[in-house]
C-alpha cells in the first residue's frame, strides 16, 4: 500500500496518454483564419507568416479544393483541423470549406484533442469577417506563380 500514491500518479499519466481519453470533447468558441494546413505546417511555400491571408489566398483555394485539410489558425496560435461545419462533413475538398478560404471566422463547436492534433467539429459559424489578413501588402503573392502572367 505504501506504493499507492506512485501507482496512482502513474495510472493518471497513462490514462491521459491513452487514445480513449483524447476522444473526450470540449465545447469551445474559436476565432481564427481558415488556412491551408499543408503549406503552413510544411513550410513548402515559405514561412508561416507568408502562407496565410490575402498573399496566399489563391493557393489556399487550390489546397482546399485539392482535399488538403483546412484548419483554423486561432488567435492563440494553435491550428484546429476542421472536420465538419454544421451539417456538412465534406472536409475533403467540400464547397463549404472552399467558400471560407482565408476568411477569419468565429466558430462554435466541439474540440477533440488527439495525439497532438486539435480536431474541430463546428456546430455554427457565428461570425465571418471575410479576409482581413492583408498579407499581400508585405509578401505580394505566395507562391509567386499563383497569378499567371497577363496573356498566359
Amino acid at each position, binding site marked *: 500500500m505504501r506504493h499507492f500514491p506512485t*501507482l496512482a500518479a502513474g495510472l493518471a499519466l497513462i490514462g491521459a496518454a491513452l487514445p480513449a481519453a483524447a476522444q473526450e470533447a470540449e465545447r469551445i468558441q474559436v476565432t481564427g483564419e481558415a488556412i491551408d494546413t499543408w503549406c503552413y*505546417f510544411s513550410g513548402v511555400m515559405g514561412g508561416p507568416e507568408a502562407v496565410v491571408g490575402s498573399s496566399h489566398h489563391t493557393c489556399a483555394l*487550390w489546397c482546399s479544393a*485539392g482535399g488538403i485539410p483546412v484548419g483554423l489558425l486561432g488567435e492563440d496560435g494553435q491550428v484546429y483541423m476542421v*472536420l465538419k461545419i454544421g451539417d456538412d462533413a465534406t472536409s475533403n475538398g467540400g464547397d463549404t470549406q*472552399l467558400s471560407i478560404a482565408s476568411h477569419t471566422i468565429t466558430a462554435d463547436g466541439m474540440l477533440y484533442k488527439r495525439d497532438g*492534433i486539435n480536431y474541430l*467539429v463546428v456546430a455554427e459559424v457565428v461570425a465571418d469577417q471575410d479576409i482581413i489578413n492583408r498579407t499581400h501588402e508585405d509578401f505580394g503573392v505566395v507562391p509567386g506563380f499563383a497569378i499567371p*502572367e497577363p496573356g498566359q
Partner: protein
Amino acid sequence: MSAPSLALALSLLAGAAVAQDFSEGSDAREWGLYGESKAFFAATVVDPLCELTGDCPDNCGDGARQLALLREADGVMVLPLKNGQPAFTGGANELLPFCGQAVEVDGLLITDAELGAQNVYLVQTIRAEGASEWIKANRWTKDWAAANPDAAGQGPWFRRDPRIAAEIAREGWLGLGPEEDAAFLKEWFQ
C-alpha cells in the same frame, strides 16, 4: 497492479512521451522540408470524424471526409495532409480504397513544435497489409480528371478547376474583391 500490467503501462507511457523513429525500412523520397522525417509504418485506415465522435457512415464517408491512419505500433492517429503529387492535393483520396483495412504506408512525417505540427503526414506509397506491390499515392489528379471531364483550358488541374475559377472570378486572386485585385495586379506585373 501485477508486474506485467505495470510493465505494459510503463511502456505505453514511454511511447507517448518519446516520439518514435519510423524511418527504418522507409524508401520515401525526401522533399527537403523543414521538419520532415521519413516514416514507414503499418496502420489501419480510419475516418477521424467517426473515431472521435461516433458518426460513422459507410465506407468512411465515400470520399467526402478526411481520412487518417491509426498506427499499429503505438495507436497514434496520424493525419495525412498531402499525397505524393506536387500539385496541391491531399491524402484522403489515396486512403479511401483502403477504408477500414490494414495497410502499410511510406512517406514523410512533418514535425514542427513551434507551429504545432505533430503526427501529420505526406503519404507517398500505400499497400494493403500482405500485398507485395506498392501503390503510388498519386490518384488525386486522376480522380479530378474523371470528375471534371469538361474542364476547359490548358495546364494543371488547379488552373482549370471550375470551382476555383468561380471563386477567383467573384473575389479575385487575393480574395479581396475585383477592385482591390485590379489595383494590385497593375502594380504586381509592372
